């Protein structure tokens, strides 16, 4: 205990933890010109994916696009190391289409590690942080287990599920981080001591198997797309399949059987989920297989996916089979699945319980309000998912740097990005289970599309110094092209004399033209799409698919898009009415009791945010408006 501490160095920003949040945070801070130190428990697990070997999907894919648009790293690392890409929700509309990629885990780690090592101004270090240094209520450094004391102006904590991590497999339980790592115990106590409120959540992962004995004939092949799309707005090829679609590696779909479910039922008494061993709250959207069998007892089969952990990996992730059953039961479960009769389990599934920081204590810039200079991000804040973590890491890293530079925090609004939805939900609504972003959580879903993430955010990224010249130029070219196309479609008139056009219209049962019509207007007809009339339009060879798609979406859905924009405008005015942190809500007459409590807890930055806090009623908001006006006039009178 009485270890001699020594002064080990001074940085502007220190990031603790090099998972998906930590990597983005450290890269962002360094790219914004801050002298940054990134400390991790283990250099070999930088940017590790402890669960599924994939990135993206609805809402998560949107997040990655936004991270990319702001100048983050995740999309680039993902594209570089993808072994398969698939655009999901193709038929369900432009707002909800989302790319999901399978990534080579090791390659992903290396890609991110290389980006970090190559980043000027960023230092990487393997160490275990035991405590934070505070001075005058401000966090200003960290101390490692070996006594190294680092000073800094901002600290970003991204310690994931490591805080008091506890692994549970059947009756076996031990202290540990994910994937055989060691946990961090003292940091959790340290936070509690500082008066930061922690909660406890549970998560889990399925077993991994060796592919050698798998009978793939009993599975349905799930190939990648033939039309290739990327996570990043930048042109980046997979190092494995080099944009040759046919070389992508497939996943495999199979099903559990009645036998599987019988085995689970027989062994339920040994399941920590049901024996009361697990006390942390798990996510509803990611139930264990035992949970699924119990809750949906009428089903005699659940789907599972075999996903390769890498390009040439023999190890497969068994998606859908998350479990904390005893090891030998896990083997039995696996072998009851057609095609896995002789499967070899490489790693068992497990449940992990961990402490998290209750996010109402944060500002929308992800700073712990009680401790200026301390930021938290990622799973530590009670979220789940690589993408949710990376997005928070990016915002925390940006704001840690802006704190150093004494600039206002970057805050993404709900109407500007899924990042905004994520942070706003976390802080204002409070969470009862590990939070996963869903597209249905976004009220302006049609505005927050994956295709326009750059249009929404890249300028912001440039302003704060994250978007480099290369990306900026690339972006501006796209915008110029898009504007040109918008103008052309808004002015070019198609003549009724154009016979091939009339013929096409006839073919698709669209009213023939009697007078001239602008291209844009024609495209707005429900039965018309660009693909159907492309052949008869003036040459579009000058435009990329990306730009054409963007312009078409804007035209086709213009009515709905305008409506959402009007709503954003209406609610946006409330965001401009600022609430100072000094307001003593307990003293404001007319506020409801719960409203007072929640407002004091969250300390919203403006009326708009206040209106979204769970427990704050519309009447409370009216009272606050009157209060603000009262104060404004009192100040004037003085």
């Amino acid at each position, binding site marked *: 205990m009485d270890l001699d501490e020594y002064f080990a160095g001074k940085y502007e920003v220190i990031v603790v933890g090099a998972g998906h949040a930590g990597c983005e945070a450290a890269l962002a801070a360094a790219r914004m010109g801050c002298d940054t130190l990134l400390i991790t428990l283990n250099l070999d697990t930088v940017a590790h994916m402890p669960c599924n070997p994939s990135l993206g999907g609805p809402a998560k894919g949107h997040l990655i696009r936004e991270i990319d648009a702001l100048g983050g790293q995740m999309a680039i690392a993902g594209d570089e190391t993808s072994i398969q890409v698939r655009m999901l929700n193709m038929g369900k509309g432009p707002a909800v289409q989302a790319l999901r990629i399978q990534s080579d885990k090791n390659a992903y780690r290396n890609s991110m590690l290389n980006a970090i090592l190559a980043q000027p101004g960023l230092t990487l270090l393997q160490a275990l942080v035991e405590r934070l240094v505070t001075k005058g209520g401000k966090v200003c450094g960290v101390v490692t287990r070996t006594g190294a004391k680092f000073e800094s102006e901002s600290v970003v904590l991204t310690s994931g599920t490591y805080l008091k991590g506890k692994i549970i497999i059947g009756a076996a339980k031990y202290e540990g981080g994910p994937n055989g790592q060691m946990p961090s115990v003292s940091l959790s106590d340290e936070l509690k001591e500082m008066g930061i409120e922690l909660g406890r959540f549970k998560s889990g992962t399925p077993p991994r198997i060796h592919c050698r004995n798998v009978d793939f004939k009993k599975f349905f092949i799930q190939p990648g797309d033939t039309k290739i799309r990327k996570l990043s707005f930048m042109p980046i090829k997979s190092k494995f399949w080099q944009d040759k679609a046919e070389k992508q590696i497939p996943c495999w779909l199979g099903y559990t059987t009645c036998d599987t479910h019988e085995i689970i039922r027989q062994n339920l008494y040994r399941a920590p989920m049901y024996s009361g061993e697990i006390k942390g709250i798990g996510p509803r*959207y990611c139930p264990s297989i035992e949970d699924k069998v119990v809750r949906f007892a009428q089903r005699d089969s659940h789907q599972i996916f075999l996903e390769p952990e890498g390009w040439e990996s023999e190890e497969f992730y068994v998606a859908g089979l998350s479990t904390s059953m005893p090891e030998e039961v896990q083997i039995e479960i696996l072998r009851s699945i057609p095609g896995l009769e002789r499967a070899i389990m490489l790693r068992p599934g497990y449940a992990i319980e961990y402490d998290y920081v209750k996010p109402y204590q944060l500002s929308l810039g992800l700073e712990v309000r009680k401790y200026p200079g301390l930021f938290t991000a990622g799973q530590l804040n009670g979220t789940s998912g690589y993408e949710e973590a990376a997005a928070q890491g990016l915002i925390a890293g940006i704001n840690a740097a802006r704190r150093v530079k004494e600039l206002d925090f970057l805050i993404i609004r709900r109407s500007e990005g899924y990042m905004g939805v994520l942070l706003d939900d976390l802080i204002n609504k409070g969470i009862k289970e590990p939070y996963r972003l869903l597209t249905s959580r976004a009220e302006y879903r049609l505005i927050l599309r994956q295709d326009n993430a750059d249009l929404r955010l890249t300028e912001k990224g440039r302003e704060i110094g994250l978007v480099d010249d290369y990306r900026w130029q690339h972006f501006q070219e796209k915008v110029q092209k898009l504007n040109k196309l918008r103008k052309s479609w808004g002015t070019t008139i198609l003549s009724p004399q154009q016979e091939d056009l009339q013929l096409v219209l006839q073919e698709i049962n669209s009213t023939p033209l009697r007078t001239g019509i602008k291209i844009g207007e024609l495209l707005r007809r429900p039965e018309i799409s660009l693909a159907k009339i492309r052949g008869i339009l003036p040459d579009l060879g000058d435009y990329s698919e990306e730009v054409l798609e963007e312009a078409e979406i804007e035209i086709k859905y213009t009515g709905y898009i305008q409506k959402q924009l009007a709503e954003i405008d209406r609610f946006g005015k409330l965001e401009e009415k600022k609430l100072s942190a000094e307001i003593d809500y307990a003293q404001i007459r007319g506020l409801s009791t719960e409203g007072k409590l929640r407002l004091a807890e969250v300390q919203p930055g403006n009326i708009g945010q206040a209106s979204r806090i769970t427990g704050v*009623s519309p009447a409370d908001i009216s009272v606050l408006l*009157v209060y603000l006006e009262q104060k404004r006039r009192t100040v004037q009178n003085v």
Partner: protein
Amino acid sequence: MDDTIIALATAVGEASIHVIRLSGMGARDIVEKFFRPKNLKRWDSKENFTLHLGIFLDKNNISDQVLVGRMLAPGSYTGEDVYEINCHGGPLITQNILESCLKAGARLAQPGEFSKRAFLNGKMDLIQAEAVVDLISARTNNAAKLAFTQLNGKLSDKISNLRGKLLDILAFIEAGIDFPEDDVEDLDRISLEKNIEDALQSVEKLITDSKTGKILCEGLKTIIVGKPNVGKSSLLNAILKEDRAIVTNIPGTTRDEIRESIIFAGILMQLVDTAGIRASEDLIEQMGIDRTWRALENADLILLVVEAGCPLESDDIRIIQNYGSRVIVVANKIDLLDQPLLIEPLNGEAWIPLSVTYYKGFDCLEQEIKTRVFSGDLNCLNEPLLSNVRQISALEKSGKVLSDASQALENGFPWDIISIDIRKALQYVSEVTGDNVQEDLLETIFSRFCIGK
């Protein structure tokens, strides 16, 4: 704050003239949709602080002669353009005018909202701020939920049922969108179309029902009984003569036994003339007459007048025992009592101590009638009644966006677009029930679909 708000400025149902107030940038446009001024030139002159006589032709083409007051920004009470429609006081007329304006884009004001705007626009001084806050916070935290639970049971069931339908439709779409690789059945446009159509019909039925609600159209069939000399006639005369009671003639009424239609306690009441409730004081003696008993049988509300402090007669007891919760016992002449009246209800009836002579206790009587009508205790609501304009307005909006969803579906729009309208419809219905959409949506998704790839 740029939307236009509207509210009844006078107390509900209790005046011969009602004032409906609008405030906001769109107020003029909304009023002009329905108002036909007699002197169009003067109306068009945009002269401030003026009164205009004319006809208000509502969306059902029912007209009423009205006076419209115009007070323009910034000199008006709220500091915005304010229009006040002075109309005749029938509940049908006011409700129609309110609904017409709501349909044209106005929004019902929240409690204290006119004052709030006045304050925020600098029309009130600081000293008045507290009073404004009191007005605002007088509202309970979940007023919508409270109003919903006060609805008649059948009606709240129907609305909950409708909400469940919408929740199911949305959960189905959203589960497919957010968990595309999970075991969620594929969306199919035909069944979705059917489900939307079904929900739309429920909404329309609810709205129609609410309009034909028996009380609003026909009135509460009420009978006043009691043994001679207890003060039935004076009670009736007091009710009839009272300023707040208006005798009306509802056209198309065909029931021959009806003697008077009056509005009392804000509710249209039909005083049933049985064996001469006004003329004859010896009704109880004729109780054996079938006709009278039949009238009691069919009455929605029975006002049984007794003399406070005197023991009940056997006929009184018989009425109470037969009709229980439909009976309000009016214990008249409490002014003659030396001590407080001891009340021991026999069968769920209410007791109201009252003095006709000194005009005491009428407030309690009014309140009791309202409570009984709106809590559904009185078995007079064959079809559910949605009397609350706010609730009707939310349902109407819900119906409107459901039609939009239907249209979008027909036009081949994808799921993410259709879901926008369905979510809105669900939000409007949830305004009536006071429930949260987002949490219930996720709960429905996770309980109905086995999510978890």
